[in-house]
């Protein structure tokens, strides 16, 4: 009986650990990359693209993105209206349960403003995503030409 009890205890422990892992992870990021726009004068800018996958059965929400490589990181949406492209900052973006949020050209993008130092192709930019339900997720994005 004692052995059975121990077994159940271990099982419960494992399940709890599993649930906890699911809770903090549940977010997968892929295709993260940064393109810097090379200018001498302020503001120096760049753009980050990535795809966030929410593997949880509950929705989440991207609230903020920060980077140690830029003074500001803004979430922008590109909207096309009669052939005219408009860029608008957004304050938060929903990520559906078992769904994706894609930052890709022509859709959403992350604008890096006030690039610190000199970013070159091959460098890495660290991004910190703040999600409403998951908390902080760290992402390394490579600097590429395209």
């Amino acid at each position, binding site marked *: 009986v004692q052995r059975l009890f121990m077994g159940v205890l271990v099982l419960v422990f494992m399940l709890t650990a599993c649930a906890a892992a699911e809770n903090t992870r549940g977010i997968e990021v892929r295709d993260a990359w940064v*393109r810097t726009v*090379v200018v001498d004068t302020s503001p120096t*800018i760049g753009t980050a693209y990535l795809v966030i996958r929410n593997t949880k059965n509950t929705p989440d929400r991207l609230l903020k993105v920060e980077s140690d490589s830029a003074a*500001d990181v803004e979430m922008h949406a590109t909207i096309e209206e009669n052939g*005219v*492209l408009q860029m608008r*900052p957004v304050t938060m973006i929903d990520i559906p349960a078992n769904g994706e949020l894609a930052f890709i050209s022509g859709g959403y993008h992350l604008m890096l403003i006030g690039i610190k130092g000199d970013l070159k192709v091959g460098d890495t930019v660290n991004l910190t995503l703040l999600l409403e339900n998951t908390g902080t997720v760290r992402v390394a994005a490579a600097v590429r030409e395209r």
Partner: protein
Amino acid sequence: MRWLILIGFLFIAACGAPYIWRNGMLLDPAEPAPEVALLNQDGQPFRLSEQRGVVTLLFFGFTNCPDICPTTLVDIAAARKQLGSDSEKVRVVFITVDPARDTPERMARYLTSFDPTFIGLTGSEAELQAIYQAYGVTAIKRDLADSAISYTVDHNASIYVIDQAGRWRGLISHGAAVEDIRENLRFLLRSGGN
């Protein structure tokens, strides 16, 4: 015999088939392109009417445009590169829609990072407005209260294609693939502006 006829038809179809412009619009009839007379990034005068014998791609944009402008310029640069030695017959001209921030120095550094042959043009507000109007370009400054860049410029992101004879031959839509841009250029280089 039947096969021979079929093959013959196929040959004729292949030869006579008109080129189908990719991802955009071919203008027919092509009219002389409205003049663009502005200063380049080195402060030297540029005239579109003097660019004969080359295909000129005009793109209207601004250096603080984080997504569409660099994406398009990178794609144009790639398409041009894929043309090999014919790339010399293609001129790429970036016309600012944000003359207040796009100084010649800023444009020079910006464009060099895509392709050192790219030309950046600016001018007075009145000169630029006349050109936007002639090409049907919308360029509207929008204040962004919550952004560190304080304003953006809504604008068209098509590529305006001027042929070797100085005629406005077509438009390539924004988001066109590198191959689409390259094949449209090949077509114009092949037909020699005719």
